[in-house]
């Protein structure tokens, strides 16, 4: 145990953390009602995937994993901008933020 605390950290620990965060993101996405919280769970999933990319970039000692992670961040930023604009429009038209009440196209 003391060797574990002073020696190198096994790579699987980072992947396990990433899996746990991804699982929590999926749980939030399925169980939450507020559309903004659902969106934030999606961002949590993207962050977990970023951690996986960078872990594998360390394993292969190649900087490509960080480049992919960079592109994931850029795409997440663009998606957040457009997604929040859509949420604003939906709120303006339906006056609600609960996804259960936005279940039909007809108002």
């Amino acid at each position, binding site marked *: 145990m003391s060797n*574990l*605390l*002073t*020696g*190198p*950290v*096994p*790579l*699987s*620990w*980072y992947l*396990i*953390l990433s*899996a*746990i*965060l991804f*699982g*929590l*993101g999926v*749980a*939030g996405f399925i169980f*939450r*009602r*507020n559309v*903004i*919280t659902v969106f*934030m*769970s999606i*961002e*949590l999933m993207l*962050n977990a995937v*970023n*951690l996986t990319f*960078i872990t594998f*970039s*360390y394993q292969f*000692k190649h*900087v*490509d994993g*960080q*480049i992919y*992670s*960079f*592109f994931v*961040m*850029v*795409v*997440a*930023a*663009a998606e*957040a*901008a*457009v997604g*929040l*604009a859509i949420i*604003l*429009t939906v*709120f303006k038209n339906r006056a609600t*933020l*609960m996804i259960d009440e936005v279940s039909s196209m007809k108002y």
Partner: protein
Amino acid sequence: MTALIFLIFAGIAVFCGISLVVQTHPIACALSLIGVMGSLAVLYLQLGGEFIAAAQVIVYAGAVMVLFVFTIMLLNAGAETTTFHASRFVKYLGVVLLAAFLGLISFIIQATLPKTEGVVFGNFQGTPVDVGHSLFTSYLLPFEVTSVLILIALVGAIVLARKEI
């Protein structure tokens, strides 16, 4: 030392992740997500991704999450009032099953990953020089395409959020 820092910040990340799923007020969820991003930035630093750690804090935690926080404040989103209609037994069983599922995945990952060397801080450094070189030579096409993507997102967000005159 590396393991201690990993355990502390992984614990903070998991705690903030659980807090994101459990909290009722959207602002508390947003702050939990910022906590996750911050602790993940520290883990990226450990894994040698120093430029990505800085980009995570500047872009993700410092700009994208500000956008989320603005939207929540503008829409005046309050705490959720509708409850999840399920019996208490089902809720507890759900938490136990989720924990079991995550434990199973952890075991599978740890058993099937080939035994490579562990992570030592300083063994690999993704300096901004390397990242920039790679970004502008091997990955030039995706880089230019993402610039067009950001332009599309910019125009789309402005058009959608504009006032109808």
